[in-house]
């Protein structure tokens, strides 16, 4: 039986109207919802990656500008991963441009020598600053946002083996800082 074209258009229009927004491309309303949902999380990620709030704001603003420009090619449900992907790439580029200076700044700001501060959070933040930018970004994606290894691969563009190597290296460093503090207690 041949289905008339009017019936096909009617079904398509009704389906498009009632399907959830996450399955459709982004519009201005979905974009604004992403701003309210993910701005702070993106800012925390950029702050920890760069160690500088001003640079982190620039990264966040650039990330949302790119999202708005690419809104016709991004599904609403993939917006968060897209934002963190852009922020990750800008953070890595930021570190590449300011390689030597940033490392020294981090050492001056966060290094506490033989750790006397028993606050676990501060110890971990200190340990985080000791990591390389790649491992730091992966630890933040894993611990701050709860992404799985597979999702981290898609965001960073790294392979499964690379993600495991960087993350396991970072965990060992963090664990060594904790053990060292425990031993000093």
């Amino acid at each position, binding site marked *: 039986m041949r289905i008339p074209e009017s019936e096909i258009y009617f079904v398509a229009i009704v389906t498009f109207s009632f399907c959830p927004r996450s399955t459709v491309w982004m519009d201005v309303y979905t974009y604004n919802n992403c701003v*309210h949902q993910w701005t702070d999380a993106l800012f925390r990620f950029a*702050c920890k990656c760069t160690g500088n709030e001003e640079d982190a704001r620039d990264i966040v603003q650039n990330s949302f500008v790119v999202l708005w420009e690419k809104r016709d090619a991004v599904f609403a449900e993939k917006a968060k991963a897209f934002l963190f992907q852009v922020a990750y790439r800008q953070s890595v580029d930021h570190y590449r441009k300011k390689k030597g200076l940033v490392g020294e700044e981090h050492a001056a700001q966060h290094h506490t020598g033989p750790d006397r501060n028993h606050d676990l959070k501060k110890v971990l933040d200190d340990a985080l600053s000791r990591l390389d930018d790649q491992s730091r970004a992966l630890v933040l994606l894993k611990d701050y946002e709860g992404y799985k290894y597979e999702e981290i691969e898609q965001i960073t563009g790294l392979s499964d083996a690379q993600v495991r190597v960087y993350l396991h290296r970072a965990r060992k460093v963090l664990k060594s800082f904790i053990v060292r503090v425990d031993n000093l207690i």
Partner: protein
Amino acid sequence: MVNLENYEEYLILYADGELDEAAETVLMAFIAEHPELKGELAAYEAAHLEPDESLVFGAKESLLRPVPARKVIPLKSWWAYGAAAGLLVLLGVRLARFTDRPALSGQPAIASNAAAAHRPVIQQVTVAPVTVVVNVVQVQLPPKTTPMPKREATPRTVPASEIAAIAPVSSPLAVETMTPALPEAVMSTPPLATNDQKTSSPITFGAERPEILTALKDAANERIEQVRKIRKAIKGADIAVSLGQTELFTLHF
């Protein structure tokens, strides 16, 4: 397979939540076998960062995009628009229902009853049941050389073919019912000589009223069809013909 060379990788994967249930079971069994590794497992579980909620972007409004203004069309007489919309919906429903029905204009008129209504009622003949007893006053039997035998105590059997010679007659004795074969005799057989002077002659209208003749012919044909149906139905049955209380003969079909 967890061993002392690769257990640390399994501890990190377990702390990151990347192990499936089967691998977790194996790892827990290995830890149970090596209790000294429990402290190391606890250290890896503690080596996870918590989001710093104090870091807030602040000026989110600068990131928002303007929403296009909605056009407001004032309706001064909204009730008129509502009534018009309701009327359109009603017309649409009616039109849809009308188009779903088959074409009404193309249906031919029912002619069978109309033609039958114009036919004059010639004779009301009730189709008698198979076992009816018919009172026949005068019967003209074919001449015979031999004297007519005395009427037997038991009625004699008359073949069905002689029934065709029986003509309907009016007599003092009322004819309660008429056999289905009589109408056929009216049209096909010549009038029979009877003693009754009141025997009606065959109906001849001639050219005076041809339409009535046609109607009579149609009615007769209908009766003939009824008779044929009845003859088929009564095939194998018996019909007893009697005069008053006296049974004259029995017809065996």
